[in-house]
């Protein structure tokens, strides 16, 4: 195994251990942030190919509802099984929608992806079986029949989130260096050249779309297990916008960007809300403006700048 992989695994274990001593609210915040980080990692694959999806909320919400609904109907709290269902269902839906979306670019891709998420939103709001706009509660997860009891209730979901981010992060890191990963940049730069090199641009985009859907479904599933409650808001376009927001904040230059962006986003939001409950969105907006102005490649570029200075 490569050193960097070991490093990431080590970091994962350390972050997981830190969860044991963290205050409960922070564990909870980080769990939700990491779940969003997963969604944004998928978005990153699309953004590298020059495609901005304003509809990842579709799979985020669908993943969450899969966990909630399957948990109810199959009467199981098995976390791994429920997350598997979430991912499979999301990929299946993406396999259909992707056939259409891979034909579109730019604003059309963004708007079509948003439209599909709004359809899900509309359906859920009208479905009284799923609690309409109030959503419904999800039972706490079990892992091989075990669940932590007592005060640090969300510890289990936290563990799931850290594990998922670590595994998916290692995958994406390797993916971005593979021919399929580079194909994204190639598509962004020149589709004609890609076709003349013998690769189908549509197929490349399609596969990236499926992967992004899987990651968003996983993130949504973890959110459902962690929060214990889900509602249609997860498919609303503002949720999808949040993912784009996080991607811009964290930067798309590295896998760590989405994770850092998501944690930063949740922290700023929490504090902004405490400081000024009525204008917290403004604070978030100003934070994003500042980042775009001073760190156009996201917060991750700070790390890059720092490590480059050290090596040169």
């Amino acid at each position, binding site marked *: 195994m490569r050193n960097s992989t070991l490093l990431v695994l080590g970091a994962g274990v350390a972050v997981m251990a830190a969860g044991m001593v963290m205050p409960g609210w922070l564990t909870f915040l980080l769990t939700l942030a990491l779940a969003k980080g997963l969604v944004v990692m998928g978005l990153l694959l699309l953004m590298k190919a020059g495609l901005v999806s304003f509809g990842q909320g579709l799979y985020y919400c669908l993943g969450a509802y899969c966990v909630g609904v399957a948990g109810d109907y199959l009467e199981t709290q098995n976390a791994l099984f429920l997350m598997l269902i979430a991912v499979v269902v999301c990929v299946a839906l993406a396999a259909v929608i992707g056939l259409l979306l891979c034909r579109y670019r730019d604003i059309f891709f963004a708007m079509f992806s948003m439209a599909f998420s709004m359809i899900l939103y509309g359906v859920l709001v009208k479905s009284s079986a799923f609690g309409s706009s109030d959503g419904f509660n999800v039972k706490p997860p079990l892992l091989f029949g075990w669940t932590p009891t007592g005060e640090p209730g969300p510890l289990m979901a936290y563990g799931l989130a850290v594990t998922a981010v670590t595994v998916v992060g290692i995958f994406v890191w*390797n*993916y971005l*260096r*593979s*021919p*399929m*990963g*580079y*194909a994204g*940049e*190639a598509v962004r*730069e*020149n589709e*004609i*050249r*890609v*076709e*003349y*090199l*013998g*690769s*189908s641009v549509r197929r*490349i985009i399609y596969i990236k779309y499926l992967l992004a859907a899987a990651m968003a479904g996983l993130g949504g599933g973890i959110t459902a297990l962690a929060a214990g409650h889900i509602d249609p808001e997860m498919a609303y376009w503002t949720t999808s916008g949040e993912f784009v927001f996080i991607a811009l904040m964290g930067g798309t230059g590295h896998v760590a960007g989405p994770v850092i962006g998501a944690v930063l986003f949740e922290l700023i939001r929490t504090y902004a809300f405490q400081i000024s409950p009525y204008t917290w969105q403004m604070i978030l907006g100003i934070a994003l403006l500042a980042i775009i102005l001073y760190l156009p490649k996201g917060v991750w570029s700070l790390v890059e700048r720092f490590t480059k200075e050290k090596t040169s």
Partner: protein
Amino acid sequence: MSALLETRSLARNFGAVTAAADIDVSINAGEIVGVIGSNGAGKTTFINMVTGYLQPSSGDILFKGKSIVGKNPRQVMRAGICRSFQVAQLFPELTVLDNVLIAYGLMQHRVLPMFRPLATGNSIKQAENLLQEYGIESYLPEKVMTLPQGVRKLLDIALAMLREPEVLLLDEPTSGVAIDDKFDLMDTVMQAVRKSGAGVLFVEHDMEVIARYSTRLIAFYDGRVLADGPVAEVMDNEKVKELVTGHHLEIDYKREVAHA
């Protein structure tokens, strides 16, 4: 014996504009066919049709005796017909090395791997060798958008040659290249081409370049083949003088006036 590549009454129109009216062209292995024709004569349209980028309105394209009409650029490329572009088609924001690595990566796999790295010791070596063959290895770490026109053209042609094509179609390989560098560029390309034994068709406006490299000459005019034969014969053809080369001089004259 039938030709390696042959087109029969190939035609294409864009609405009311007829870009190609009736094109019959054949290319044999090892041949280097020059193509001349004034602006808008249909030369690029011809290459676009042969490589599957544009579908012909009518007519047939035979490659090794079989029709390839209806195939897309991917299939045509994999079959063995490759092209370069009038305006180099590259990945401008990426480095020359990444351009070549991606080109190899996409070409070598029908199903792109997701777990294996693109850049390995071997693939980098392979890219360096290719760039060396075209004399542009010193640009390896540069971003394509910063390269001089001539280097971009060479890189574009190098990517067309990766597949080791049986038929190579070059669309104005020396356009945008300084006069002094044209022959160097063509020497480099022709050396690589001769080694492969491919049949070549190249579009060119410079008569000196045509005279030096082609074994046969085709003159296009208004979407048709005006003349086809030995270079000297076609250049001497009265119609070609009147409609193609003469016209051409006039345009060059106008350009100079415009620049003065």
